[in-house]
Each structure stands twice: as C-alpha cells, then as structure tokens.
C-alpha cells in the first residue's frame, strides 16, 4: 500500500503539472496537443543534466539545475507550437502531432549522439542512466520515499491556483481564450498573451517530463517517448474542466489507476487475479475514455480555443 501511495504521489505530480500546462495554453486559446513532445524534450534535458552534474555538487544545486534545464527545454520546444499556431495560424492539431513526432525522433538522435560521444563509440543506445543525479531528489522517511519532485509539484499547483484566480495576468489570458476580439478591443495584446500561455505550458510540461521519467526508474529509453502521458494529462484537463483545483483532484484519480500497473504485484489480491500485467497498463487509458465519455457532453472548453486569431479580419 505504501508503494501505491508513493507511485500515486509522483504520478499525480506529473499529471497535475502537465494538465495545468495544457490548461494555461487552452485558456489562452491554443490547443496544445504537443504536450507529449514537450515532456520528452524536458525529460531529455533534465536527464542529461543529471548525468552530467559532478557527483560532489550539493543536492540543492543538482535539483535546481535539473529542473531549470527541463523547464527551459520545455519552453524552447513550446515555441515551435507558438510560432506555428500564433504567427502562422497553422492547424493546431497537425502542429501538435508534428511536435510529438519531432520530439521522440530528436530525443533519440540527440541521446544516441550524446552516448556515442561520451562512450567514445561503444554505446549507441538511446538509454540514459541518471541514477546518480536522481538520488539527490529522494527524501527518505521510515515508510514512504518522498521526492523533491512532489514538493515542486505542490508548490507549482498552489502558485497556479493563485495566479489563475487572483491576478491581472490570468484575467487577460482567459479573456483571450474566450473572446480575443474583446480582449483586443481593450488593448490587450492577444498574440503576446497566447505566447505566454503556450510558454507556461512548455515550462510546466517540461518539468512534468523529467518527473515522469524519473518517477519509476533511474534509466530511460528515449525512443519510447513518454508513452501517452501528455495525452492522459489532456484527459485530466478536460475532466478538470480547465480549472486548476479540479485538475488537481482528477489528476490524483488518474494517478491511482496509473500506479496500479506499477505496483499490482505487490498488492496481494490484485496479483492473485488471473490478469496479465499488461492489462493494468491499459487501465488508465480505458478509464480516461470512460470518464471522457461521461464528462465531455457538458464540458465547457474555452470558446475561442483552436481558432487562430487574425488581427486584420475581425
């Protein structure tokens, strides 16, 4: 049970951060289907930092460097979406899909090149072993291993709730996702706000990416991408009705199902069931389909999402 809680906590952190990222982007009017790809970029940058940091660095420095690298990589890759969707009015679904494919391919190529160079030609794999840096994040207690990632997740969640409900920035951001013409008519720069929304989603999804790969293992094969976690986060966001506190609750619900696949062997009665482990892998996806089927009917997405804003044609 302790193990289940441990996995649920870390999975929640991932889903909350990435879903919040999706929320900020969609609230500004851009559907970010590239979350999956942004996570891959964030994960790659974070993992590379964990591999590269000198062992004698203080824990805090390792943590800060890793998170910064992931966040920056996430934001840079989200620019791919921002430029295409905001300035060039590209099809947001197409661009998101392209970024996902680009991310997996680029991460594979980069990590392979990275490994090849470091090993002087003996390691061609797309696998990174970041166990060393990863240790810095663990907080041991008697029963459960906590993790600095969870702390980061919680802090960012609280920050997101405050920003979303209390600030001038969020009021303007939401106006751009609902009625960009109205925002423009009172002098709000719709393009700038949408850039901000997408960049925030890059920031959060980048961090979500490094947490995702570090959650279960101390190694990661980058040719796998992040196995649909970005899309699960989108389902969490829809289930959470584009509101931060509801996203947090639905993320925890999804995280429980996701964690079952990691820990079912440790839970006696689940292990005793005559079900292959792969079935548990399917669980979160099946659950999210069912949940979406029952919540999408009345879901209220930001009105202007997915529609490119054209200043000239109003």
């Amino acid at each position: 049970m302790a193990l289940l809680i441990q996995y649920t906590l870390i999975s929640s952190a991932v889903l909350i951060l990435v879903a919040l990222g999706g929320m900020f982007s969609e609230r500004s009017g851009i559907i970010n289907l590239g979350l999956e790809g942004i996570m891959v970029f964030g994960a790659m940058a974070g993992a590379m930092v964990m591999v590269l940091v000198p062992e004698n660095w203080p824990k805090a420095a390792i943590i800060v460097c890793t998170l910064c690298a992931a966040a920056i990589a996430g934001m840079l890759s989200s620019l791919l979406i921002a430029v295409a969707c905001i300035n060039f009015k590209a099809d947001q679904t197409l661009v998101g899909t392209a970024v996902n494919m680009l991310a997996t391919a680029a991460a594979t190529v980069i990590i392979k090149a990275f490994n090849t160079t470091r090993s002087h030609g003996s390691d061609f794999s797309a696998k990174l072993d970041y166990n060393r840096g990863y240790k810095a994040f663990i907080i041991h207690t008697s029963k459960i291993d906590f993790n600095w990632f969870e702390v980061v997740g919680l802090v960012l969640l609280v920050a997101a709730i405050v920003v979303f409900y209390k600030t001038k920035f969020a009021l303007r951001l939401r106006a751009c996702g609902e009625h960009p013409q109205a925002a423009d008519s009172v002098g709000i720069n719709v393009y700038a706000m949408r850039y901000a929304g997408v960049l925030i989603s890059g920031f959060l999804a980048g961090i979500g990416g490094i947490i995702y790969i570090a959650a279960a293992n101390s190694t990661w094969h980058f040719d796998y991408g992040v196995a649909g976690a970005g899309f699960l986060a989108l389902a969490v966001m829809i289930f959470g009705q584009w509101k931060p506190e509801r996203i947090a609750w639905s993320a925890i619900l999804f995280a429980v199902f996701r964690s079952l696949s990691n820990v079912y062997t440790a839970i006696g009665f689940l292990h005793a069931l005559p079900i292959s482990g792969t079935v548990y892998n399917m669980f979160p996806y099946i659950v999210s389909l069912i949940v979406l089927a029952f919540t999408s009917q009345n879901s209220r997405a930001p009105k202007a999402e997915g529609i490119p804003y054209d200043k000239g044609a109003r």
Partner: protein
Amino acid sequence: MGEKISFFRRPAVQTIIASILCAVLGIFIGYIILLTMNAEHATEGMQAIITNFFKFSGNSTVLMKYMGSFLVKSMPLILCAEAILFAYKAGLFNIGAAGQYTVGIIASLYCSLALGWNWFLCVVAAIAAGALWGFMAGLLKAYFNVNEVIAGIMLNWIGLYLCNIIIGGEKCMNQTKSETFDIVSVNPSAILPGFIQDFFGGNKYTTIAIPATIIIAIAILVVLNKTTFGYELKATGHNKEAAKYAGMNAKRNIILTLVISGAISGFAASQFYLTGMEHYTISASVPGMGFSGIAVAFLGGLHPIGTIFAGLFVEYITLGGQYLNTNYYNPQVADLVIAIIIYLCGFVLFFKTLVNRPAKVKVNANAEPATKSAKAEEKEV
C-alpha cells in the same frame, strides 16, 4: 475576374509547389542536423540518404529487388495516409489510425498464425478489426462529444497493449526469439498472392498489396469527388452545421467515416504483415505507421493521388536512414527529417493563403465588397 487563372494561382499547382517546398526545406534542415552532428561526413551522409538503394543501380536484378521491397514497405504507409485523408475530408483528425493499424496487426497475425485461416479471411478480419476500432472512436465522438484526437490516442494505447497480450502469447510468438512465427512456415495459405515478383528480381514479398493500394487511392478519389456520399462527407467536414441544416445525418456520417478510415488502416496492416516480410515484436510504443501517415497525407496535399507520391517519398527518406554510416550517424535522423517535414506542413496553409489573399475578399463583416453590390444596385435602379 476572368475565367483564366494564372498558372501559379491554380490551387493544384500551389499545393504541389508547397509540398515540394516542405520536402526540400525538410531535407535541407536534415542536412544542417547532419552538419551539427558531424560536419565532416554530412555531405556524404545526405548523399547516402538520397542515393538510397539506387547505389545498386549497377545490377538491375538487385536494384529491382530493393525497389520491390521499398514498394512493399510504402504501401501500408500510403494506405494509412489515405485513411487519415479520408477522415480529414470529413473534418475528423483520425490520429487513431495508428491504433486501427495495430488491431489490424492483431487480426492478421492471430488469424494466420493461431487460427490458420487463408489470406483472404485474414485480410477481412484485419479490415473488421480496424473498422471496429474506428467505430469506437466514432461512437464516442458522435454520441458522447469526445474529441476524436484524444479518443484516438487512448484507443491507440489500448490497441498496443492488446496486441502485446494477444500476439505475445504462445500461439503467435516464438517465446525464445520474442518475435512472431514465420507465416510462410506455419501457414503459407495466409501469405498474400504475389504480384509480378519476377519483374522485381524475384522479390518474394511483392504482392497484390501494390495494385490494391492504388485501387483504393483511386476509389477514394472517386468517392470524394463524384458521389453523393463524398459530397455529404465533405460538406460535413467544411461546415457541420450546414450539413445538419441540409438534412444530412451528421452522427451517422461521423461514425461511418471513422469506420471506413479504420477499415483502411486495418487493411494496411494486413497488406504488410501478410507478406511475411517482417515479424511483430513486443513493442513499448504504438507503431509509427499511423503517425507517419499524417505526414504523408498532408505532404500529399490531402489529395488521394498526391498521397501516393508523398508516401513513396517519405518511405524513401526513412529507408535512406539505414544507408547512413552508423559510425557517424544513427538511422533515426531520417525520422527526424520526416517529423520536420510534417511540422513544416503546418506552414503550407499559411503559404497558400498568402498567395491567395488578393483573390479572397472577405475583410470584415461590414466591408462587403462594395464594387459588386454597387453593380447589382445600379441594375436595379
């Protein structure tokens, strides 16, 4: 406005130019990537990708054999792209093609290896499996308002895990080699009939998949442009509300479209795995065929015939990755180039509207083209 449209203003010409531009730009960026990875061998690497299997051009039998294999690998990609294109015309982004392809693999391999069915029944089973997966996405979209992209992605993963469970079982998979049994040795009746194999240097994998793909592309072209069904689908794709106003059954059309799209994707899987060319191995990620299909469909200008050429091009580049010198580069560079090309496809619409802008006068609600209404008025005075 005259009847004559200048050459570069023709939509078809623009589409072709835009697609070629994407492809060239993608290759150029790929070259830059090679340069950054290893500047010394970049030109050589790019040449390897582009020369591809034509490096065997000295020996025509070998060349044709490679050509045959190249075509065999291209066909499922083209079919997936046709499936995506077909749904896209009806306003649906069938990202679930990857999952429909995956369940097509399940049906093809299970029916051939475990059940011992002949090729025709296996193909039918694959079509049915793909159609079922499409049906689920369609049902969720039409009756539960679930975005087809999200539903498609979820179904992709469910399909993948199902495939790992079913095909990973003892009936289909050699547990020591962890790959599926050879269809040729287990059940030769499940192998698709050959297609001018002698022409392709005795390539035993060239099958009826090749003509079948071309027939399907032409069929889609005809359905979309000549039939009432295509008329309905495109109307729904352009304007769902207007389609409803016209009395078309939007829900039925959504489901039907995704069923057909899924059927084509499932068919694609059968047309590859029933050649016996490749084994299925347990995978941690959804087969990329359905995703590359998106690239192909867009690169082909969303035209059924253009898609054939785009499919050949994309497969050619992918294949080219394997000709890279692995001492300096890894073959996934080719995947990266493909991904960049899809990303660039996002800018195609922008490029086209830029060229078209002066022709389309729709500025704001209140500035209706004054000249035309003026003419109309003068007449009525």
